[in-house]
């Protein structure tokens, strides 16, 4: 099967095109660096690869290195160079590097629909002539131009012709040509182009030099002489000279093919969004609004109603099953186990749907990069980067994609610290347990829910401060981020993203939660000798009592809580379902007190995340030692904070 690989600057719409082609719903958003892993799909009998965005083939962060390695080593049959048409010049800088790889390149001018708004016209024919690549205009988000895209792809594969390499100034060309003609260049690894290799040798590209056998002395001398001559002539290092030359080419082509009508946009949202005084209050208002709308408003209306519905379903089913003479254990498993457990989780679908919807609008419109911009200064003071705020916001939905999104943070220490603190922000799956506790112990006390988020933020800040204080080698960190254009989120994309995440939640309720509820019910109905016993004498209670003493100081040293926390490792939603299954006829207010309920919530808020998030952490941290440290840190903070909260409440009350 022939392979197309989509490559281009971050946030130029590669994944939107990938989704439009392959019919998948891979994660898209409007900030640079949404895609951090290679994605594969099939379209029209071609293998299509979506790669993380890069500005240049000299990469900095791990996800950019992935793109470079792939494009150099795997040599796709066609390089699909996706260009944000409103950002032609900088995009052509990457094109000038792609053209040297000896593979056919198809230029895709994406975001065609925005050009008109911006008053830009691009002469496609001329662009094609000057770059030597076929050019096609599309709008991936609107699905426009995909037929023509298909025709061009097939034509380009048929012709299988690499474009001519962009030419630099005569002075530079002289040395490139001399190197290309040198016999030594035949020693370059297979599949590498001589011209590309010559440029990399002049630039002293470390990744490339490492793949080369040692140079003969004569060649080495010649190479150094060439570099020195270039340095002297341009009064700069060779790498800078080459970059400069490439941008000259890009500038030249962009000026010759692009016409811009000056037009002042009537209103720029950034006047408020990044305003010196309004920016931070606005951010707080937006996040507050998101939670108020989803949890407060929609959650308030639907939760009670759905709870009633599942309760009624359970009662009716019990009556029905007993009238059929069904074995009581089986009827209990269905109602007390599965319906109680799964129902406790499904109750939260409407508010999570709204939360996912609002988050996806935020991600789509371009605001995320602005948050990183306005908060960088604050984040830096706790050892994080402005870019760390993006995972923290995504983490209010689900911690797993949040942890993956840390990959765009260039500096390793900041990236690892972000991975460590992201789970402190409560994900959607932790919401059921908070809601349950608030309903029974703090009804009508609106300030509890915001306090939970604040506690999470506090844990982030505290961890940052402590880590910074113990960091002996404070290194210089960098924050460079493109601010994307604002765009109206498309209904289709918002709907797809929201549906995907909500379905994920529902699916988990139908699989992990269903299974664990059933198992928990059975374990709480039998003793170790498999005799049907009361829950208090069941094997689950015995297991739970082994752990329970640990939580005694926190006020929830009873077996039900311990078992619930254990199942929470599989999925945080399980905590609620396990509680509702194991409590049986007892009421939650008989087990918890307001102080232990708060301690329980605090512990769940801060302790290690679910297994899916733990494995995401493992992947990003890349070392067992660091993972273990993170888990111990999170659980340690959780334990201490819960202890503190309980002590405070007992003191005050």
């Amino acid at each position, binding site marked *: 099967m022939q392979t197309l690989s989509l490559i281009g600057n971050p946030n130029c719409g590669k994944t939107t095109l990938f989704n439009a082609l392959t019919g998948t719903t891979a994660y898209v958003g409007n900030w640079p660096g949404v895609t951090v892993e290679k994605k594969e799909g099939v379209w029209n009998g071609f293998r299509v690869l979506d790669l993380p965005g890069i500005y240049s083939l000299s990469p900095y962060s791990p996800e950019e290195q992935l793109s470079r390695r792939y494009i150099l080593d795997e040599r796709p049959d066609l390089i699909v160079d996706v260009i944000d048409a409103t*950002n032609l010049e900088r995009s052509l800088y990457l094109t000038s590097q792609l053209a040297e790889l000896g593979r056919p390149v198809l230029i895709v001018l994406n975001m065609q629909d925005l050009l008109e708004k911006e008053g830009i016209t691009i002469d496609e024919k001329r662009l094609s002539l000057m770059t030597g690549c076929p050019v096609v205009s599309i709008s991936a988000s609107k699905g426009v131009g995909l037929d023509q895209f298909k025709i061009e792809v097939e034509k380009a594969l048929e012709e299988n012709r690499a474009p001519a390499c962009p030419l630099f100034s005569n002075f530079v060309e002289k040395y490139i040509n001399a190197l290309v003609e040198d016999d030594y260049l035949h020693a370059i690894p297979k599949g590498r182009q001589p011209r590309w290799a010559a440029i990399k040798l002049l630039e002293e590209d470390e990744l490339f030099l490492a793949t080369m056998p040692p140079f003969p002395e004569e060649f080495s001398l010649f190479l150094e002489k060439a570099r020195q001559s270039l340095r002297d002539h341009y009064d700069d*290092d060779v*790498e800078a000279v080459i*970059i400069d030359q490439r941008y000259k080419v890009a500038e030249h082509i962009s000026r010759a093919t692009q016409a811009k009508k000056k037009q002042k946009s009537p209103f720029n949202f950034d006047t408020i969004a990044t305003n010196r005084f309004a920016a931070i209050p606005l951010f707080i208002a937006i996040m507050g609004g998101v939670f108020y709308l989803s949890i407060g408003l929609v959650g308030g209306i639907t939760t009670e109603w759905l709870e009633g519905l599942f309760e009624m379903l359970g009662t009716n089913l019990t009556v029905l099953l007993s009238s059929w003479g069904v074995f009581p254990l089986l009827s209990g498993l269905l109602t007390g186990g599965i319906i109680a457990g799964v129902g406790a989780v499904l109750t939260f679908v409407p508010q999570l749907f709204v939360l996912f919807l609002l988050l996806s609008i935020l991600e789509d419109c371009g605001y995320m990069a602005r948050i990183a*911009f306005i908060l960088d200064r604050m984040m830096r003071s706790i050892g994080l980067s402005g870019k760390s705020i993006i995972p923290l916001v995504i983490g209010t939905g689900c911690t797993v994609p949040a942890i993956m999104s840390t990959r765009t943070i260039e500096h390793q220490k900041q990236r690892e610290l972000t991975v460590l603190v992201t789970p402190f922000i409560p994900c959607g799956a932790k919401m059921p347990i908070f809601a349950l506790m608030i309903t029974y112990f703090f009804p009508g006390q609106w300030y509890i829910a915001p306090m939970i988020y604040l506690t999470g933020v506090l844990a982030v800040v505290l961890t940052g401060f402590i880590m910074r204080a113990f960091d002996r080698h404070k290194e210089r960190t960098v924050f460079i981020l493109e601010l994307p254009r604002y765009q109206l989120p498309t209904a289709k994309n918002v709907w797809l993203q929201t549906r995907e995440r909500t379905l994920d939640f529902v699916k988990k309720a139908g699989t992990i939660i269903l299974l664990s509820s059933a198992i928990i019910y059975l374990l709480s109905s039998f003793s170790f000798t498999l005799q049907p016993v009361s829950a208090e004498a069941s094997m689950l209670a015995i297991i739970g009592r082994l752990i329970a003493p640990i939580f005694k100081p926190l006020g929830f040293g009873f077996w039900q809580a311990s078992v619930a926390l254990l199942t929470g490792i599989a999925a945080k939603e399980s905590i609620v379902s396990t509680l509702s299954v194991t409590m049986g006829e007892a009421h939650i207010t008989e087990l918890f007190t307001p102080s232990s309920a708060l301690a329980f919530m605090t512990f769940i808020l801060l302790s290690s995340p679910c297994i899916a998030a733990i494995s995401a952490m493992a992947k990003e941290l890349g070392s067992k030692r660091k993972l273990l440290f993170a888990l111990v840190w999170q659980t340690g903070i959780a334990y201490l904070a819960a202890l503190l909260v309980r002590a405070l409440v007992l003191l005050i009350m």
Partner: protein
Amino acid sequence: MATMDELAVGQRACVGAIKAPKQLKRRLMDMGFTKGVDIEVVKMAPMGDPMEVSLRGYNLCLRKAEARVIELK
């Protein structure tokens, strides 16, 4: 020599040499800060840092510490 971090909002300037370690220099140049390119400071973040600049038809934000290595002509 004036550097980019000294510019006020709304000021335009022309980029000169970049005096930075190899990696940062390459990074800035990859983003389009090459000799002779025109830039304009669009905005400062609420706490005065980072700054937003426009160049080559797009907007970018970077910290003052990074802007300090970019000399102006």
